[in-house]
């Protein structure tokens, strides 16, 4: 049995399995689902960030007692993105009922107290349990403090004192969590979705061509064909891996095209997957498809029935989510052992590639090497299982 013949037979098995699965609606849907779910969720979250940003830029400030402090109201109106409106009759009630996000109350004696250079009590009514209102309340609070500071400075100057004397410490806020930062946080999900797409994309072929083939009774006639078991297992594995790779590539393309469908650029969210990223994504994710397809084939072969195989797949699919969820909770860092761990290696590589820092060539090689070696071991094990009468005849 020559190697050339075995390779030809592997190609025949791959072609048959791919043709078969292209006609399998369940397989196609699982690929469509795995490919599109990531971009859809990311697009949705990006839009939320953009909406929030727009909301925070325009603030509606209901003011009760506008007539008592026309200068303050005028000043507020001059600030960009601020709409000053007449406050509700019962401001506390309105904020509690979430009709308003906040309300400002200017006291009747504003002008008198102000002219005596005494502090005027201006109330901000807010519900601190409301997270969505917090940035708006913060913004209004800052605006009022700023107005107070400006007036204070003018008063000092009028008394011949440098305003600087009243400010022993000058606080400067440097806000790191900009919209871009939030967008970057969303981007941390992309590696997980790419890995998920690869994992789910090959799953249906991996189960249908092993557990499914046995359950239909077509495995026994197949094994009567003159070829080593490794040929059949190898063909089935590679067919599943190719489907996984196609899913990975499609998800990557969809993610790269997200900016076309979302007005991200004009909102100041920088998000781009360019050709230089795509090379890195492919180098990081495609070898992993070989591993995930091999793992799925091995597990499905061990299962006693197609149903059992499917329920195992339901558990396996949590695997690629582990690094994603951990990565969202703690920064994973770049320890060398990570590259040598299946699933985690590709995840860390993808995170780095998308974060704009291309990892060293060695990291790619180690990760790909580990995926290929573990895949080869798993395929070897599956081929051994295919030799077992207990497995073939499902005893």
């Amino acid at each position, binding site marked *: *049995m020559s190697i050339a*013949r075995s390779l*030809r*037979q592997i190609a*025949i*098995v791959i072609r*048959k399995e791919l*043709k*078969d699965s292209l*006609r*399998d609606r369940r397989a196609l849907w699982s690929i469509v689902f795995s490919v599109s779910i990531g971009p859809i969720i990311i697009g949705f979250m990006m839009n939320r960030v953009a909406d929030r940003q727009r909301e925070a830029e325009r603030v509606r400030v209901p003011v009760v007692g506008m007539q008592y402090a026309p200068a303050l109201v005028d000043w507020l109106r001059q600030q960009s993105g601020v709409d000053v409106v007449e406050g509700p009759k019962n401001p506390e009630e309105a904020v509690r009922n979430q009709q308003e996000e906040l309300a400002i109350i200017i006291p009747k004696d504003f002008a008198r107290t102000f002219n005596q250079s005494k502090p005027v009590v201006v109330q901000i009514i807010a519900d601190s349990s409301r997270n969505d209102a917090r940035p708006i309340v913060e913004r209004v609070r800052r605006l009022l403090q700023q107005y107070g500071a400006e007036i204070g400075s003018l008063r000092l100057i009028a008394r011949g004192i440098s305003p600087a004397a009243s400010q022993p410490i000058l606080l400067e806020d440097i806000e790191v969590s900009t919209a871009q930062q939030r967008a970057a946080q969303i981007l941390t999900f992309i590696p997980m979705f790419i890995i998920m797409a690869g994992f789910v994309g090959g799953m249906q072929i991996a189960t249908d061509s092993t557990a499914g083939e046995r359950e*239909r*009774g*077509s*495995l*026994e*006639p197949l*094994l*009567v*064909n*003159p*070829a*080593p078991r490794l040929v059949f297992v190898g063909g089935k594995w590679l067919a599943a891996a190719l489907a996984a790779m196609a899913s990975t590539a499609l998800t990557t393309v969809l993610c790269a095209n997200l900016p076309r469908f979302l007005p991200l650029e004009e909102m100041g969210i920088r998000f781009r997957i360019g050709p230089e990223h795509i090379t890195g994504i492919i180098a990081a994710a495609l070898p992993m498809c070989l591993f995930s397809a091999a793992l799925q084939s091995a597990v499905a072969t061990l299962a006693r029935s197609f149903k059992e195989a499917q329920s195992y797949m339901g558990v396996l699919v949590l695997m690629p989510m582990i690094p994603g969820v951990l990565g969202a909770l703690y920064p994973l860092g770049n320890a060398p052992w990570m590259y040598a761990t299946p699933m985690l290696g590709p995840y860390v590589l993808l995170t780095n590639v998308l974060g704009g820092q291309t990892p060293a060539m060695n990291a790619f090689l180690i990760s790909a090497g580990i995926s290929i070696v573990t895949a080869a071991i798993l395929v070897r094990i599956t081929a051994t299982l295919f030799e077992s*009468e207990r497995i*073939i005849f499902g005893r």
Partner: protein
Amino acid sequence: MIRVDQLRKQFGTVTAVNGVSFTAENGAITGLLGPNGAGKTTTLRMLYAVMRPDTGSIKVDEVDAIADPHEAQGRLGVLPDGFGLYPRLTAREHLEYFGELHGISGAALRQRTKELLDLLDMNAIADRRTAGFSHGERTKVGLARALVHSPQNVLLDEPTNGLDVMSTRAVRTIVRRLKEEGRCVLFSSHVMQEVSALCDSIVVIAHGQVVARGTPDELRRHTGHDNLEDAFVALASADRGGRE
């Protein structure tokens, strides 16, 4: 030609096949006759190398099927018991898939596929997916698929089980034709009439052992029963009596 010598196969504490020996000649139909659970299917599975015998030897055209299973498989056409098809592939694609795995391709494969589709009168269903096929249609696909590489030796495990009269007749026609072509046909069945009508030589198996072999006439003479069915019952129960 298939020569089997002293085959034994044990599953746990159950001995499914216990020292089976027989020869199936070229240009002849050999019937493997026995009640359910006698060890027919296990014997055939060892012949077509999806099971390994514990002891014994199998020769397919002088090829040692245990030492070189793939060479032996290349010379065998097999219709396993309770075989399955791919519901999303057409009948033609089934033939092409197995033909390609046997190393046939291109014009030769198309020609051979056409021959078999004609022979089994399958042209009407050739390009339909097998998902909704009747039992008879499925058996035809399985049979054509087993013959796509023109094997010298053909193993059929209860091929007429559950078939209607028309399909049974089609199977018999093919089997006779294979014999005329000088091929070796090994045919298992638990149906007496089938075997006596078709086979040149019969091997009766009971409890994993060969209890008799010969032409239908020889078996009748051997047991002293004119009716082959009575002969069979006598043989199958004689063995049990002998063991107990």
